């Protein structure tokens, strides 16, 4: 393992989040490259386990970056990898949000909102299908995914029960 340079880690993450258009999945490969391949701060296995742990935790999946920092250097490390996630995104969004709220009928905001909305929805649909193919390897998995979508569209059950059922089915080795 290389000697940990928290300042460099902070700056690298800050730079990544400034260009993270398209969200966390866009920069995941580079985070992996930086901490595993270039600086050998984590092994491949540790990276995968940390990523999995953050997926199990409630909250945005991106919190795996917090866990990487914490694993490397405790609270200071967690701050060094979490603050870069927070600062560029919230600052820019506040700026754009401010003008969007103040001039909701400005031609540029109207055009951006109505022009890009279909693209956003198309991209979300792409994410959904990519995720569906990534997590499912045989017909039972696809059945669970499609059944979940159908139930959520038709029933008003609390979807936490569906997730819990999925977790139990997974632990029982059914899927």
């Amino acid at each position, binding site marked *: 393992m290389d000697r940990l340079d928290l300042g460099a880690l902070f700056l690298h993450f800050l730079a990544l*989040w*400034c260009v993270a*258009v*398209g969200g*966390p999945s866009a920069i995941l490969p580079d985070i992996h490259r930086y901490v595993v391949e270039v600086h050998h701060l984590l092994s491949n296995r540790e990276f995968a386990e940390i990523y*999995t*742990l953050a*997926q*199990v*935790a409630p*909250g*945005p*999946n991106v919190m795996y970056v*917090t866990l990487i920092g914490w*694993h490397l250097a405790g609270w200071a490390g967690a701050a060094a990898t979490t603050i870069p*996630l*927070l600062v560029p*995104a*919230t600052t*820019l*969004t506040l700026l*754009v*949000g401010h003008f*969007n709220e103040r001039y*909701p009928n400005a031609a*540029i905001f*109207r*055009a*951006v*909102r109505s*022009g*890009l*909305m*279909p*693209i956003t*929805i*198309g*991209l979300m*649909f*792409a994410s*959904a299908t990519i*995720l*569906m193919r990534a997590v*499912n390897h045989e017909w039972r998995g696809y059945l*669970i*995914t499609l059944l*979940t*979508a159908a*139930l*959520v569209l038709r029933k008003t059950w609390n979807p*936490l029960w*569906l*997730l819990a059922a*999925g*977790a*139990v*089915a997974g*632990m029982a*080795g059914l*899927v």
Partner: protein
Amino acid sequence: MEQTESDKPCVSRLELFLTFSRITLSSFGGALFWARLGLVERQRWLSEREFAELLTLGQLLPGPNVLNLTVLVGYRFAGWSGAAVSVAGYLGWPFLVVIGMGLAYQHYGALPQVQLALAGMSKVAAGLLLATVIKLATVLPLRWRPWLFGLLAFVGVGVMRWPLLWVIGALAPCAIFLAWKTKD
């Protein structure tokens, strides 16, 4: 088609904090589903269309799209401090939870059951995301152009697996230009 100022509900900072806390603490396997459920169906702070519009803006900006959406919603209802309390609710809890899990991981290592549970949950989570997209798609007007752009974005990223930035770079300027030229 545009929302007006007058139908904007009155929302306190405490409600913002609690709602985003609830959204984030329910968010297993992706936050988008829970954000739409909380903001559109449970609280009714946003219409389906307003949600899709703010999500579009959030998607454009760097950073996690639901975090950006959180900022936009907090700012809309209670200004700068509203955005701050919303983000505190949305990221504060997961920050603590994930560190708690990190502690457990250091002491016990990763349990194989966790991996199995995750495998089961991820199949359900994929279904939640799929349902969210289907609901969001209902706000698209029934004209060929929006559906064509949606289809091109889906095929480019989801089927051809071209880089996201290339697809957005090619489609977005055309879509914005055409929307600019059209008055609807």
